[in-house]
């Protein structure tokens, strides 16, 4: 007996849907409910009741707009730096690496063999007093004797850039590698010098990779709190850190939930605008 053909795709989708429903849709409904609750008068810590208090959102945003701004600023900076580092890297692997292509790709993903947390702690060492970066920069008189790098926004952005670099590199590589080298030769044949051919042919053809890479970097970076927690200071707190402390330290669930929703919507709006502007649907 064979299944009717029409049903097969739905059956294949079923496990994924069931998983997402249980672990994404249900929690998000729960989160939405929590976000409009208020404290029970005279109740215990962590005891809340549903009052449809939408004012939670306004209050949460007003109290934390600085951290929101910082989150998007840091995420934007990390995305830009990651793109600047990853583009030449992906280009080199795609077009110049020859037989070393696979080894280099393994090296790009190699950091994933160590835990995210551990790598971030390692950056604390690298940027700390006992690392080689600070003494090196001091001896070159680039930074003063008193300047440190840990607990600064530089450290947070550097850590984020590093941690999300593979997410930028891999999609970029995938789209650069797909470019037919003959189209680049054709540009040269049609009177475009190297720079013009790069600008007019290589870059537009790699746009799907640029869009995918920047999204895969920006979205997790905007909600990240590990880098700020380990490499930063109270002055570099991001919205992720606020949510974390509201949940686990202050046990203020409604505010944490409202902040989470606000972050989600803000990212959605930004990403939609970005994709519209980048116009990837036009590319093949």
């Amino acid at each position, binding site marked *: 007996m064979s299944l009717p053909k029409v049903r097969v795709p739905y059956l294949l989708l079923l496990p994924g849907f069931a998983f997402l429903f249980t672990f994404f849709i249900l929690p998000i409904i729960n989160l939405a409910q929590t976000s409009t609750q208020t404290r029970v008068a005279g109740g215990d810590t962590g005891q809340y009741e549903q009052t449809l208090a939408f004012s939670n959102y306004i209050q949460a945003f007003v109290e934390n707009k600085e951290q929101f701004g910082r989150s998007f600023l840091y995420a934007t900076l990390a995305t830009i730096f990651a793109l600047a580092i990853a583009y030449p890297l992906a280009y080199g692997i795609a077009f110049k690496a020859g037989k070393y292509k696979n080894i280099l790709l393994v090296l790009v993903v190699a950091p994933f063999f160590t835990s995210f947390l551990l790598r971030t702690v390692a950056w604390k060492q690298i940027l700390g007093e006992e690392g080689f970066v600070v003494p090196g920069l001091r001896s070159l008189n680039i930074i003063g004797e008193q300047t440190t790098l840990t607990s600064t926004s530089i450290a947070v952005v550097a850590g984020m850039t590093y941690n999300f670099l593979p997410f930028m590199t891999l999609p970029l590589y995938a789209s650069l590698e797909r470019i*037919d080298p*003959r*189209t680049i*030769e*054709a*540009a*040269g*044949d*049609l*009177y*475009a*010098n190297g720079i*013009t*051919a790069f600008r*007019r*042919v290589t870059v*537009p*053809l790699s*746009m799907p990779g640029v869009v995918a890479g920047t999204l895969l970097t920006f979205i997790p970076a905007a909600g990240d709190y590990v880098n700020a927690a380990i490499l930063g200071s109270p002055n570099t707190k991001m919205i992720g850190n606020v949510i974390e402390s509201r949940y686990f330290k202050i046990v203020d669930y409604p505010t944490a939930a409202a902040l989470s929703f606000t972050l989600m919507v803000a990212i959605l709006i930004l990403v939609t605008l970005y994709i519209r502007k980048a116009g990837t649907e*036009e*590319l*093949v």
Partner: protein
Amino acid sequence: MPKDPITARGDLRLTRITKSYGDFTAVDDLTLTIPKGSFFALLGPSGCGKTTTLRMVAGLEEPTVGSIHLGDTDITTTRPYQRPINTVFQNYALFPHLTIFENIAFGLRRRGIKDVKEQVDKVLNLVELPHLAERKPTQLSGGQQQRIALARAIVNRPALLLLDEPLGALDLKLRRQMQIELKWIQREVGLTFVHVTHDQEEAMTMADTIAVMNEGKIEQMGSPADLYDNPETAFVANFLGQSNLIKGKIDGTDGDNLVVDLYGQKISMLKKRSHAVDNSLYAGIRPEKFRISRLGTPVKGNTLSGGKIEDVSYIGVSTQYVVAMPWGQEVMVFEQNDDGVAPFDKGDEVNISWEPNFTFGLRGDEDIEAGTEVNPEELEEE
């Protein structure tokens, strides 16, 4: 001050060009002049160096040794974008992110030409696809993409247009049609076309002059008729059409003719069509030049007797016979079905004859299999 290469015009001259990749010599001491305004074909099997030669002319490869001139301008090391040369790439290499209009306008815009729209429209009309200007390349059929690739190149009116297996991706019927169109367009625009192909029929249909390449060297160069009627090497004799090559010995001369002994039977041929260097030679006769006759029928010209029909294939316009000769060789004969004579049957004993002037002579030490083994898979790769 040297002339700007972009303005160079004239004949293309390759002088003692060699291109090596490590131990492998792709092009070996090649010297070649392609006259301005001609339709020139580089013909040869996969790996013969024809594509490498084309890429050196385009500037995509640099020769290891030798020089390339266009008119009196040395362009050996000129960058591709500074050469007045455009290429129709194999598989076209159209820009997938640009419209057809912008694909064609690409070269004009890079050179800062003013009336882009007018020129693009003109060339779109020439290739009869003006309605596709706003489409993207992926929305076009193979034949349409081919024409756009051609339009994108000729709109620049280059001194030289290079075509790298331009019709290889098209099906047979479309290929025939494009061959005729390409030839027409070449006459229309009056540019020099250099065409690289492994398809002998394509080269013969379109080109004024063909250079047959083998193992990095030119085997022979000439008009399609020259190459076909008077090949100088076994490779050319076999690569362009089919040949019957029969081992023989030069027995003497008779005025302008040579007397040749083929397994005891004397034939005659023109002295000037022999490329033999000593007494031993291969007599070459094209299959359609042979006539078959029954024993005892009087015939003119050279005759070889003792043949026996081995195989008959009737293909409408002609009939192909395989005739076994007394010395064990099988020869191929194509007979037009135009004289009403009943075809011969398998097992018939026959004589074969031909006009002496159609004979060509090759060196007796040639490998008579050269150029016959063409692996179709290899051709796909190039």
